C-alpha cells in the first residue's frame, strides 16, 4: 500500500486542515504528536496506510483527516479520539479492545448505516461517522445513569421485574424500547444493490492466514479449483502485521495463489456451513455492489480462521486503554498509530513478549511487564471512567499507565466445524478448545489445530490442502459418474485419501481466564463475571441455560471473545473443570450478515403476453395476476361489459394454461384426472372437465378439445397450468408408466384471444372467411383448426366463459399481435372494443361460472359445485372418485356440508365484500361466506356467489350477510348459479 510509484493525488486539494492538527503526523519514526495520548506515528516498514492519500471524514460533526488504508478506528485513534462508544446496558465509556472485526466496542453509525464495525470498515472520503445509542453525546451520555443502579440490573432483571402484572407489559415495552441498543435507520434510505452468485469450487478455504494460503496453494497444485475466503481486507492473517520476514512469506504465498489461478475473496466471510458443504459466503468487497452473497457448494472445506485473542477478566477490564496484544500489533505495525504513551504489559505467551518490543519500537514507554508465566497478574485497572491511570498487580503494587496490554491466550473459533457436526474438546495443556473428531470433507488447519513453528504450521496446512483436494477429486468423480450431462469419468474411482497429516497440537499455555477480581466477561452485552456467578447460583448452571439467561455470548461479538471466559467462570462457580462444563454450540452465521445480503438480488419473474405492448400503449391498467401482467381494464370495466353484451369485445386470454396431448392413452389419462367422462369425445368436440385431488377437492378446471384422432388440446386455469402439468406427469410417470401419452406444455406457443358478444360471429367470419361458422355445423363446445387473419394453424374454440356467444382463438404466439390488430381493424364498425380481466370477471359472475380458487377453497369437493351429472361416479376410476362417492354430489350430501350458490342481496345497491360471512338469520351462527360479488352493469343490481350449508341452499332461502362495517343485510339464494341468461340462449345462439 505504500508504493513509491503512486503519484500525489490532487484529491488533497480538497482537504482543509484543522488548525493545530498536523495532517500526517511526524514524518520520521519516533515519538507521536505532543500532548496527545494516541496519534499517528512516523512511517513504519510494513504499514498499510498510504501517507500521500489523505482522506477527509467527520466524527460526531468534527472534520478529521485519515489516510487511505486506515480503518475508521485507526483514523480516529490517529486523531487522538479514544472514546468511541458506550456499552449496551450501563453505557460505560468504551474504546478499542481488539481493534479488529470482533471488537465489541467499535460499533458506530456511518451516514444512515448503523452498527458499522469501525475497526474493520475502511475509511472512505466524506464518511460521516458518529457514536450511536448515546444522548446527548458519547462524552456526556445521560443513560450512563444506568450504571448507578447497576447492582440492581443484574441478569434476569427484566424477566423478573416486568413479568407482572402482564397487562402493563405494553407500557413497559414502550419505555424499554427507548433503551434498545444500536444505531438508527432512515426508512427512506435507498436499498443498495445486493448481488448474488452461485459457485461450485472443489475446495473452499476459509481463512487466508499463512495456513489458509498454504492449504489453498497445495490444493490448487493438486489440481483442485480453489476459492480462498478471507475475513479481513487483505491476506496474511497475523503475519500481515508481522516483521519483514513474515510479510515476505505472505507475499510469496500471494504470488503462488495468483500463479495457480486461485479465486481469492478478501473482506469476505464464510458465514455458514450447511448440508453437503453448502456454504454461505458474504462478500463485502465486490465492486459496484454493497454486498454479495455467494452460495457455494464445495466438495471440501478447509477451516483455517486462525485464533482470536481472548480478553482477561479483572476489575476495570473494559476501561478505555485496556487492549489485547493483537490490537497493539495491528495499530502500530499496520496503521502506524500509537495506542498510548505509557504501557503495562500482562503477558503469558510470545505474542505478549513481542508486544513489548513493538511498543518500544513505537516510542511507547513500557512501564512494567507482568509475566503470568512467572506468577504475575493484574487484578485491577484504576482511573476515572473514561481513562486508565493505574494498573494494580497481584502483589498490591500500582503502576501508572494509560495503556494496559493483555496477552493471556486465545479462543479457537471452531464455528464452521460446529456447523459440520464437530464438537470441540478442551485441550487442558493448551488452555483452549480444539477441533474434536476429524470430519471427512471439513478439515481444520492452522492455529485452530495447534501451535509450533511457522514451518510446522505450513507443513500441516500443505498436507491439509492436498488431503482436501484428494477428497474433492473423489467427490467430483462420483458426481460426474452420476450426472448425465457431465463429462464422462475416465478410469475407476480413485481411492479414498487417508488422513496422514503430521501431528499438530497446541503448545502448553497458562490457563488464565479470570483474575482474583471480577470484571466484564461479555463486553457486547455488559455481562460481568459476577452476573454469571449469580446466575449459576440461581440454578442456571448449564452453559446453554446460562447463555440464554444472561445473554452472554449473544451480542455482536457472537461469542468469539467471551465464550471461553464464560465457560471458565461457570466452571469455577460450579467447582468443576472447563472440560466438564463443555462449551456452547456455535451456529450460523459465523459473523453477522446484513439483511440486504440475505435478501440478495430479488428475482420476481413476470410473464407478458405477445400483445402486452399493445395493452400498455392503449391505456390498459395492469393487473398482477400471479406472475402474469394482464390488462385489468381500459378505463371503464362496466362500459366494457355493456359493449360486449351489446356488440362484441375482445380480451387477451393468453395466460390460459394449455397442454398438447398425444398418444393412444390420452383418453385414459383424461378419464383418470377428470371426474367426468371422456371416452366418446369426437374429433372437433370440446368438453368441460373438473379435476380433483385424491381427497375429492377441486383442483382445476378447463376445457379440452380433440383436434385430431391422436391430438388433444387441454386447457387449464391461468394460475393452475404448472401444477396441472406436474399432476399429469406425476400420474403418468409414477402410477401409469405403461400408458403412452406425451404431455407438452404449450401455453406460450399460442397467443389466445376471446371474441365475445352477439356480433362475434360476424367479426370472426371476416377474419376467417373459409371457416364455416353456421351454428349447426360449428356449435357450442366445438373446436376447429383454421386460418385466421391469414395465419395458419389457429385453433378456434366455441366456448363462452362470459356467457356470450364467443370464440376463443389460439394463434401461434409470434403472430398473436398481428391477429389481434386484424381483429380490431375488422371490428370497428361492429363496435368492437377490448375488455379486461375485470369485465370478464363481472360477466362470468353474471353467468354464474365459478373460478377455482376464488369460489372454491382447499376443502371444496366437486359435489359442492352443483355440477350434477357431470361428476361421473359410475366411472371405474378417477382421481378423487372414492371420496366423491362417499361425499355425494346432490341431495344426499350432509346438511352441514357447504355448497356453491348464487345470492342476491335484498337491497340491490349493496355489494358485499368478498369473504363476508353468511349468518343464519337472527343468530350469529356462521353458515357460509360470499366468494364473489360485483355490481352487475347488465342487471343493474348486486350479484354474488357464495358457499352456504347445503340445508340452506334451496332457492328462496334468506340468509344474513355480515358486512365488514358490522351491518347486517339480507340476501336470497337463487335457483341457478346464473344471474343472467340461465338457459344459455346467448351462449348457444
Amino acid at each position, binding site marked *: 500500500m505504500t508504493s513509491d510509484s503512486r503519484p500525489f493525488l490532487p484529491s488533497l486539494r480538497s482537504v482543509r486542515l484543522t488548525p493545530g492538527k498536523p495532517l500526517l503526523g511526524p514524518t520520521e519514526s519516533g515519538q507521536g504528536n505532543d500532548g496527545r495520548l494516541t496519534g499517528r506515528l512516523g512511517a513504519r516498514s510494513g504499514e498499510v496506510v498510504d501517507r500521500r492519500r489523505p482522506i477527509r471524514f467527520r466524527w460526531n460533526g468534527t472534520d478529521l483527516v485519515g489516510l487511505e488504508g486506515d480503518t475508521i478506528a485507526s483514523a480516529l485513534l490517529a486523531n487522538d479520539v479514544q472514546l468511541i462508544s458506550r456499552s449496551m446496558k450501563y453505557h460505560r465509556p468504551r474504546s478499542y479492545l481488539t481493534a479488529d472485526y470482533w471488537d465489541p466496542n467499535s460499533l458506530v453509525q456511518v451516514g444512515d448505516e448503523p452498527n458499522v464495525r469501525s475497526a474493520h470498515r475502511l475509511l472512505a472520503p466524506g464518511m460521516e461517522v458518529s457514536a450511536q445509542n448515546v444522548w446527548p453525546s458519547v462524552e456526556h451520555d445521560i443513560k450512563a445513569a444506568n450504571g448507578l443502579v447497576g447492582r440492581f440490573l443484574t441478569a434476569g432483571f427484566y424477566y423478573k421485574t416486568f413479568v407482572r402484572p402482564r397487562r402493563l407489559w405494553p407500557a413497559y415495552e414502550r419505555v424499554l424500547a427507548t433503551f434498545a441498543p444500536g444505531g438508527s435507520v432512515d426508512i427512506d434510505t435507498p436499498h443498495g444493490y445486493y448481488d448474488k*452468485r452461485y*459457485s461450485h469450487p472443489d475446495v473452499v478455504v476459509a481463512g487466508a492466514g499463512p495456513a489458509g494460503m498454504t492449504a489453498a496453494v497445495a490444493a490448487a497444485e493438486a489440481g483442485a479449483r480453489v476459492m480462498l475466503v478471507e475475513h479481513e481486507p487483505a491476506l496474511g492473517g497475523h503475519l500481515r502485521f508481522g516483521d519483514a520476514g513474515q510479510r515476505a512469506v505472505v507475499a510469496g504465498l500471494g504470488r503462488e495463489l495468483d500463479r495457480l489461478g486461485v479465486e481469492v475473496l478478501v473482506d469476505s466471510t464464510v458465514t455458514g456451513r450447511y448440508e453437503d458443504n453448502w456454504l454461505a459466503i458474504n462478500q463485502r468487497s465486490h465492486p459496484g455492489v454493497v454486498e454479495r452473497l455467494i452460495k457455494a457448494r464445495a466438495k471440501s472445506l478447509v477451516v483455517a480462521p486462525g485464533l482470536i485473542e481472548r480478553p482477561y477478566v479483572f476489575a476495570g477490564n473494559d476501561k478505555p486503554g485496556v487492549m489485547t496484544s493483537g490490537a497493539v500489533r495491528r495499530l502500530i505495525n499496520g496503521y502506524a498509530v500509537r495506542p498510548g504513551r505509557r504501557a503495562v504489559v500482562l503477558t503469558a505467551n510470545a505474542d505478549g513478549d513481542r508486544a513489548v518490543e513493538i511498543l518500544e519500537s513505537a516510542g511507547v514507554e513500557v512501564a512494567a511487564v507482568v509475566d503470568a508465566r512467572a506468577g504475575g497478574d493484574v487484578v485491577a485497572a484504576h482511573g476515572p471512567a473514561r481513562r486508565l491511570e493505574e494498573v494494580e498487580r497481584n502483589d498490591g503494587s500500582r503502576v501508572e499507565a494509560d495503556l494496559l496490554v493483555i496477552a493471556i491466550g486465545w479462543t479457537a473459533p471452531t464455528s464452521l466445524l460446529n456447523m459440520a457436526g464437530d464438537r470441540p474438546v478442551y485441550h487442558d495443556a493448551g488452555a483452549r478448545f480444539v477441533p474434536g473428531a476429524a470430519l471427512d470433507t471439513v478439515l481444520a488447519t492452522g492455529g485452530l489445530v495447534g501451535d509450533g513453528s511457522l514451518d510446522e504450521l505450513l507443513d500441516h496446512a500443505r498436507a491439509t490442502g492436498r488431503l482436501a483436494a484428494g477428497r474433492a477429486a473423489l467427490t467430483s468423480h462420483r458426481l460426474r459418474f452420476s450426472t448425465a450431462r457431465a463429462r464422462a469419468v475416465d478410469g475407476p474411482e480413485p481411492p479414498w485419501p487417508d488422513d496422514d497429516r503430521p501431528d499438530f497440537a497446541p503448545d502448553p499455555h497458562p490457563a488464565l481466564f479470570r483474575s482474583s477480581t471480577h470484571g466484564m466477561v461479555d463486553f457486547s452485552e455488559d455481562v460481568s463475571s459476577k452476573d454469571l456467578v449469580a446466575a449459576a447460583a440461581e440454578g442456571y448452571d448449564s452453559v446453554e441455560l446460562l447463555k440464554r439467561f444472561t445473554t452472554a455470548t449473544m451480542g455482536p461479538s457472537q461469542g468469539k471473545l467471551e465464550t471461553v471466559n464464560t465457560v471458565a467462570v461457570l466452571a469455577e462457580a460450579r467447582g468443576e473443570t472447563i472440560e466438564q462444563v463443555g462449551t456452547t454450540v456455535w451456529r450460523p452465521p459465523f459473523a453477522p450478515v446484513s439483511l440486504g445480503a440475505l435478501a440478495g438480488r430479488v428475482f420476481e419473474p413476470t410473464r407478458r403476453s405477445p400483445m402486452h405492448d399493445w395493452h400498455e400503449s392503449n391505456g390498459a391498467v395492469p393487473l398482477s395476476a400471479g406472475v402474469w401482467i394482464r390488462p385489468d381494464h381500459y378505463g371503464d370495466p362496466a362500459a366494457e361489459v355493456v359493449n360486449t353484451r351489446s356488440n362484441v369485445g375482445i380480451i387477451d386470454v393468453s395466460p390460459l394454461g394449455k397442454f398438447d396431448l398425444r398418444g393412444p392413452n390420452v383418453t385414459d389419462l383424461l378419464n383418470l384426472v377428470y371426474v367426468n367422462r371422456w371416452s366418446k369425445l369426437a374429433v372437433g368436440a370440446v368438453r368441460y372437465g373438473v379435476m380433483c385431488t385424491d381427497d375429492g377437492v377441486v383442483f382445476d378446471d378447463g376445457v379440452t378439445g380433440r383436434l385430431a384422432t391422436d391430438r388433444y388440446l387441454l386447457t387449464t386455469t391461468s394460475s393452475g397450468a404448472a401444477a396441472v402439468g406436474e399432476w399429469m406427469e406425476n400420474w403418468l410417470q409414477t402410477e401409469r408408466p405403461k400408458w403412452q401419452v406425451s404431455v407438452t406444455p404449450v*401455453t406460450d406457443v399460442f397467443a389466445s384471444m376471446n371474441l365475445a358478444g352477439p356480433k362475434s360471429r360476424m367479426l370472426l367470419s371476416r377474419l376467417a372467411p373459409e371457416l364455416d361458422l353456421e351454428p349447426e355445423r360449428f356449435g357450442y363446445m366445438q373446436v376447429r383448426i383454421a386460418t385466421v387473419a391469414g395465419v395458419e394453424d389457429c385453433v378456434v374454440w366455441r366456448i363462452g366463459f362470459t356467457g356470450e356467444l364467443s370464440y376463443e382463438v389460439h394463434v401461434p404466439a409470434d403472430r398473436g399481435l398481428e391477429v389481434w390488430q386484424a381483429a380490431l381493424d375488422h371490428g370497428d364498425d361492429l363496435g368492437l372494443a377490448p375488455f379486461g380481466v375485470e369485465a370478464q370477471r363481472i360477466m362470468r359472475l353474471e353467468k354464474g361460472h365459478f373460478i377455482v380458487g376464488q369460489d372454491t377453497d382447499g376443502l371444496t369437493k366437486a359435489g359442492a359445485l352443483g355440477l350434477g351429472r357431470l361428476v361421473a361416479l359410475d366411472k371405474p376410476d378417477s382421481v378423487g372418485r372414492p371420496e366423491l362417492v362417499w361425499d355425494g354430489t346432490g341431495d344426499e350430501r350432509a346438511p352441514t356440508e357447504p355448497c356453491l350458490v348464487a345470492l342476491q342481496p335484498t337491497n340491490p345497491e349493496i355489494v358485499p365484500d368478498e369473504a363476508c360471512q353468511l349468518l343464519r338469520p337472527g343468530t350469529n351462527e356462521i353458515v357460509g361466506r360470499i366468494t364473489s360479488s360485483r355490481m352487475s352493469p347488465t342487471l343493474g343490481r348486486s350479484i354474488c356467489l357464495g358457499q352456504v350449508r347445503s340445508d340452506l341452499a334451496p332457492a328462496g332461502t334468506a340468509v344474513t350477510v355480515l358486512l365488514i362495517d358490522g351491518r347486517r343485510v339480507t340476501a336470497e339464494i337463487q335457483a341457478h348459479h346464473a344471474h343472467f341468461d340461465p338457459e344459455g340462449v346467448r351462449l348457444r345462439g
Partner: protein
Amino acid sequence: MADPTVLTVRAGIGPLALKAVGSDVFDRLGVAFARSALVEIEPGEGETARAKGDHMVVAGIRPDEIWLIGTRDRVRALWSSLSAAPGFEHVHAVHLDPGIATFHLAGPHAGSVLEKICSLDWSEAMTPNGAAVSAGVAKVACDIVRADGYLGGSAPGYLIMCSRSYGRYLEECLIDAGEEFGVEIRFNSLPN
C-alpha cells in the same frame, strides 16, 4: 484484447420438440438424454457455403424428448426428412418455436454470467460442451444447451430457452448479470 462475451437476445431460433413415448427411436439419432450435438447443414445444390448460425442443435432435453433447435425453416426441413424414416411414424412433433424465447450467451465470461442467476455447476467437468440441462434461471424454468461455436468462435456458448412470456424478464436478468463482465448485447428481430 480478449474476445468479448456476447448476449444475443431473442436469437431468432426455436425448438421443435420430438416426443417418442415408449420408443427407442431416438437412439438412432445418437443423442442421449442431457447431451446435444451440433449438426452441420450441408450446402444445398447451387449453394457454396452456409453462414454461421445455420447450424442446428439436436438436444436430448428429456428422457423421452429431443429438440431440434435452429431456424424454423431448417428445423422443419430436417423434421420433414426424419419423419419419413422408419420408426419415426410414432414420433410426435410439437412446434414449440413460437412459444420459446431463446438467448445465445457466448464468450469467456458466459459461465460467470450464468453463475449469477443459476445454481448449476457450469464447470467444464460438470457442464461440458454438448451438455443439455433443464434448470431454474432467475427463478424461470429454462432449457439450456451448451453449444460452443454455435455462432462461431470456440469460446463457451450457451443457448438459453424459456417460455416466451418470461422472455423480457429473463432478458433483463441476463443483461443485469452480464453488466459486471462488460457483456455486449445484440438484439435479433424476434418480437416480444
